[in-house]
């Protein structure tokens, strides 16, 4: 079987500082509105008033740091009309911006919001797993930036053997849609996909 790199993310220790998001944006020179890695804040619950005090009712919240998951069954790759999207020998899903015509269809079919349109260049862009840094033996920018060491990367089967195989956490979609190369250590208050009671709490334009 060919190699398949993936990410591991520990939601239980993530504090939502967005250092990964910013390190990614900085390293890859991303323009306004484009974030290859995004920190999503998912939460819910409410408060009820009892006399002078407010009592929390199932209030919860957690963060997920999500980039492209370099899916094993990547819908962006199959659906791209130009064939600009391919997988390399490490299983990294890449967009060839010399071939992309900027039709944005990949952003419609990706349930992780990974492919994003670059207005300046008129093409789609996405996380390339910092393959250039990896070629120099370095880690992806997001991995090194995390002060909590919540992001790891490596051969996905090794990550699964080490950290388990959880990936269906709200607000992420069902695994079966794309078979993402992603392993999540769920937050202690995490809700399973399809059984969520919360919402994405980030402001519009924030992610």
């Amino acid at each position, binding site marked *: 079987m060919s190699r398949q790199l993936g990410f591991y993310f520990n939601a239980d220790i993530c504090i939502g500082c967005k250092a990964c998001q910013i390190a990614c944006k900085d390293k890859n020179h991303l323009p306004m509105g484009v974030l290859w890695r995004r920190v999503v804040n998912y939460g819910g619950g409410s408060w009820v008033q009892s006399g002078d005090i407010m009592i929390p009712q199932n209030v919860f919240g957690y963060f997920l740091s999500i980039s492209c998951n370099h899916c094993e069954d990547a819908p962006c790759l199959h659906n791209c009309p130009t064939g600009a999207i391919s997988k390399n020998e490490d299983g990294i899903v890449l967009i060839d911006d010399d071939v992309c015509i900027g039709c944005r269809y990949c952003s419609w079919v990706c349930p992780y919001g990974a492919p994003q349109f670059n207005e300046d260049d008129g093409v789609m862009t996405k996380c390339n797993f910092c393959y250039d840094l990896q070629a120099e033996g370095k880690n992806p920018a997001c991995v090194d930036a995390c002060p909590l060491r919540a992001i790891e990367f490596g051969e996905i089967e090794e990550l699964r053997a080490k950290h388990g195989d959880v990936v269906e956490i709200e607000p992420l979609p069902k695994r079966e849609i794309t078979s993402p190369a992603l392993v999540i250590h769920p937050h202690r208050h995490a809700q399973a996909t399809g059984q969520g009671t919360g919402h994405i709490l980030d402001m519009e334009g924030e*992610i």
Partner: protein
Amino acid sequence: MHTETWALVTFTILAQTSVGSFIALGVAHYFAVRKSGIEQADKLSDRALLPIGGLLVLGMIASLLHLGQPMYAYRAILNFGNSWLSREIGFGVMFAATGAAFAFLQWRKLSTANVRNAVAVLAAFVGCALVFSMSQVYMTAEAQEGWTTVATPISFFATTVLLGTLALAVAFMINYWIIQRREGPECQAQQCDLLRGAIKWLAVTAIVVLGVELVVSSLQSAYVVSIEDHANLDFLGEYGVLFGVRLALAFVGAGIFGLFMYQASQRPGREKLMAAFAFSAFAFILVAEVLGRVLFYATEIHIGL
């Protein structure tokens, strides 16, 4: 709504109208030949081929506006084997090519009628493949909860038939005027008969398909309301009025004016009335279908992130 979305609304509506009227024209021509012979049938239908091609070309130009790199649009056919979007564009180009080939043969009366018919039938099948591919672009996008239902292909084909038949009715009326202006109001008995027969059946088709469309779009909007909770969408709150207006316009266009067209076609001497009803029916349905498509794109309900 973004410019890109308007580009897609324009492209899908125009291309579907083009396919629908091409097929309706073929059917009308077939029955016209059986009724009055090939010469009269050609006289009824030949002129309509030009606007049908024009609609498709306009639609394809509009589709370029949603691209980041419109100059390289030809690359969109490179992944024909895997991508429905690629097939959509591929079949669009093939429909344009086969349709143009047929129009050229038909106008110049080249080759035999049988060969021309074969080319037309091929173009009609390619046109159907185009509309089907268009619907699959949305229906197979698993990350889109609002589009992955069978309502997508049904409503795309309903639009194709409704706009196709009523646009063709308008084209036939204009063609009849042109013939009258050129050849005088007399001796048009045969053309008038063919025209009345065509308008009658175009109206009946539109009325039947209107029924399908009203049922499917109502069920689809009920489905959207049922899933909108987690999508930060308030479909009826935001678009309820638009949805109601759309249904009403479609009903008046294909239902009421369609019925009037049918009535007016029953006896000769009512061509002006027939024209007025055909134009009205088309105008109402055009606005209704554009609104319907705008609503379709508004129900882009992305699962996940």
